């Protein structure tokens, strides 16, 4: 006959074992989701920044970092970087000192991230330093 002590001992063991097992399972699930999140997060940052550089490398001007003010239009932005929907990376650009802003046609709501760069704005023969803010809207 099994004693009451042995039965109680068995229950205590399995209770503790279950708690440990559950904790382990949750930890592993957490770890895997963290790995997955990190795998997904960095390409985002890399992609959007690499795309953003095209606006500085000859999209609105012919030289690195130079923006011709008359070419800084929504039309040029659309020609330079075409988007089909909000499922692409979308951008809006602002020249702070010149007070000019252009917005991609699928850029909705608020930006997820913004990048600030110095640029040289050329307006005819006049050149001046300005700040370009690139607003980035990630895939919705």
């Amino acid at each position, binding site marked *: 006959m099994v004693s009451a002590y042995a039965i109680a*001992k068995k229950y205590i*063991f399995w209770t*503790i*074992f279950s708690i*440990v097992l559950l904790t*382990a399972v949750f*930890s*592993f699930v957490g*770890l895997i989701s*963290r*790995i997955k999140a*990190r*795998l997904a997060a*960095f390409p985002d*940052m*890399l992609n959007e*920044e690499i795309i953003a*550089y095209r606006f*500085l490398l000859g999209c609105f001007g012919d030289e*690195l*970092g130079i923006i011709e003010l008359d070419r800084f239009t929504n039309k040029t932005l659309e020609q330079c970087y075409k988007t089909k929907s909000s499922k692409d990376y979308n951008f809006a650009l602002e020249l702070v000192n010149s007070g000019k802003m252009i917005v991609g046609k699928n850029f909705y709501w608020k930006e997820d991230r913004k990048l*600030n*760069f*110095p*640029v*040289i704005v050329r307006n005819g023969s006049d*050149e001046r*330093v300005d700040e370009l803010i690139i607003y980035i809207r990630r895939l919705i």
Partner: protein
Amino acid sequence: MLEDVIDLIVFIAFVALLYFLIHTLAVSPLEREALIIEDGLNELRYDYILSVYLKTKVGNETMLELMIKAKESDAAWERWKNATKPFLKYFKDTYLVLDNRTFLWKGDFHEGFFKIITDIFNWVELFRERPLEGALVTKKFVFDGEEHYVGLFVSDLKIEMPESGIPVIVA
């Protein structure tokens, strides 16, 4: 009872070891990759900022030409300071060096008492030649037949730089 406790401890230790192994094998390389990507993007960003900065026109001169003059002339230094003010926010936590002269120290102008202290440091260092090794971005220019080097050091880089690349020593 004692056997059960030992079993449990062994099981917990096994699970912990397994967790640690997975973490080391899967997460650590990812973290390293992330740092490399971040530093690569930093390099790209600062390379761009420095390129635009150096070709910015101040009157009839570029910023680079003005910096070369500012090494020798106080008047040119003042002109350079005024022209650089709009760019200071992009150079936070960086050291900007032209040849053997530091222009920006942690994003601020390197002059006055602080410059005297670092000059003494360099004198104590017995005029050892310090190339721009360790700079995040280095650019070489030839101006009036002379070679000039511009280096940009970043103080909060997460990847370790070689000992000789510590920017503090640069004059």
